[in-house]
């Protein structure tokens, strides 16, 4: 207990005595964590956007006008039974027209041009649990006999399955790229931060190697020598990471509202729990980097 107090006292005096190196390592930790934090938040936002876009992927099965109710029910049950299907809905011809009318409110004359006729087919709407499985499920539906019998265009059954084949493929390869790039960038940044912080701490210890040599000479145990340095490293890390969290919070409250009013379609709000998680990750990462960096940088001075 008394030595814990001693560590704390020493780390505090070490802090004031080596103010410039202390500030150096705090600033390094602060900047590294700030950049990592910005990328983490950016990553989460991109992930939100990507998954909200992906969630919009669904399959429409267009049905022929003279499909019997029992065939429709059979097909519905079949699709419902497929793996990866979340829910199956049915849209009648009238509903389809209604939906069309609603989406065309800006120029209703298009609907009026129809002269009371309804060219739209009835359809089964398939929502997917996993958007990435859209190809497989579409294939399974296409090979179903009931589907070929009642589909809107029996000459080419594939034409009656609408899920934006090409654009979905491209979207998924794009979103996967974005994910990989994000992970790689964050890993790279963490590595760079580790190198910087380890270097700064090593400089701080180098500046005090005389002190360490004397401590060893008068018989201080390694744990006792390491204590204040680890405490100091942890102190720098906590201050640096709190600064980073503070700046991120400031950024979030000042800049985000402006961006989201300019780009309404971007789901910028991360929600309190995600934000808190990012902040917690940053503080813990800072602490780990600070302690690990100090311990590694000290090692060579503690060889007996």
């Amino acid at each position, binding site marked *: 207990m008394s030595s814990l107090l*001693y560590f704390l006292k020493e780390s505090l005096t070490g802090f004031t005595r080596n103010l410039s190196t202390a500030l150096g390592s705090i600033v390094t930790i602060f900047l590294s964590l700030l950049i990592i934090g910005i990328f983490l938040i950016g990553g989460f936002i991109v992930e939100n956007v990507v998954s909200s876009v992906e969630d919009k992927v669904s399959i429409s099965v267009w049905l022929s006008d003279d499909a019997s109710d029992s065939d429709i029910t059979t097909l519905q049950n079949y699709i419902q039974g497929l793996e990866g299907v979340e829910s199956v809905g049915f849209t009648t011809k009238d509903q389809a027209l209604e939906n069309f009318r609603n989406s065309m409110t800006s120029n209703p004359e298009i609907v009026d041009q129809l002269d009371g006729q309804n060219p739209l087919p009835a359809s089964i709407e398939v929502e997917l649990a996993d958007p990435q499985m859209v190809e497989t499920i579409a294939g399974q539906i296409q090979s179903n006999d009931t589907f070929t019998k009642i589909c809107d265009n029996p000459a080419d059954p594939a034409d009656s399955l609408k899920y934006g084949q090409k654009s979905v493929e491209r979207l998924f390869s794009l979103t996967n790229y974005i994910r990989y790039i994000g992970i790689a960038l964050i890993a790279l940044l963490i590595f760079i931060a580790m190198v910087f912080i380890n270097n700064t701490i090593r400089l701080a210890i180098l500046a005090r190697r005389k*002190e360490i040599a*004397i401590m060893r000479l*008068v018989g*201080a145990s390694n744990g006792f020598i390491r204590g204040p340095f680890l405490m100091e490293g942890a102190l720098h890390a906590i201050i640096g990471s709190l600064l980073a969290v503070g700046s991120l919070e400031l950024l979030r409250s000042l800049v985000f509202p402006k961006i989201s009013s300019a780009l309404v379609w971007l789901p910028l709000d991360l929600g309190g729990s995600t934000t808190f998680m990012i902040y917690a990750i940053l503080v813990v990462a800072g602490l780990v980097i600070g302690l690990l960096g100090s311990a590694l940088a000290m090692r060579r001075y503690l060889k*007996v």
Partner: protein
Amino acid sequence: MTNDNTFGAPARTGAHAGRPRQAASQLSASLPMLDVDDMPQPMGTPVITFDHVTKIYPAQPNKPALDDITLQIYAGEFVFLVGHSGSGKSTFIRMLIREVKPTQGHIYVADEDLSTMRNWRVPYLRRNIGCVFQDFKLLPNKTVFENVAFALEVIGKSRHVIKTQVPEVLRLVGLQDKLNKRPDQLSGGEQQRVSIARAIVNRPPLLICDEPTGNLDPQTSRGIMDLLERINRTGTTVLVATHDREMVDNMRRRVIALDKGHLTRDQDRGVYGFDV
């Protein structure tokens, strides 16, 4: 006077077996009884034993820094370790505080074998050995008091012990008026006194000095040597490595001479003996 049997160190020391005992008893006769009681080791048991010690640094495989050294140093002795640069004095001292391990042979300090000692025990060994160096090794940004107190703090002594022992030891070395000065405000001799105070504040049974007067003028050196002698009189074993011919010749203590890693001479009341 000089011994020409340069390579016969082990046999020679064997013949010497009875000698240090005699020296020790002479010494104890001249000391007050109380000091004898304070001694950590009873007279007659060696504090330091070198048993056929050889040290070869990897950089110079054909030139051993120390070659087959066998000797014993007893409690309460005052020993000079003399020799030219490169004769192995520093290696001798670095092995005593186990900064380096012997390549062959065994070193015992207070009956503990340093060559088999576990690393975690080394700090405890060093608490029993005070060290003084030519370059003082003081912390420039701490005061005299803090520099001495540092030695007690890092081995976990309480604040109360520090507050009583530090002023006492600084009075012993004659620096009671300079507690709050920093090292750069002191003369070289005063700085060396601080480092001696730091070395003995923990009351170690053994004090090792590596060229303690190497940076000081002759008069200041004499003051330092007087201080070391006073410390020796309280029962502390003192080992001084030096080139200071005048000091060794004046004090007439036991002299151990090293030359190119060999033990060339070991005599009571010896002189420096090397031609300059």
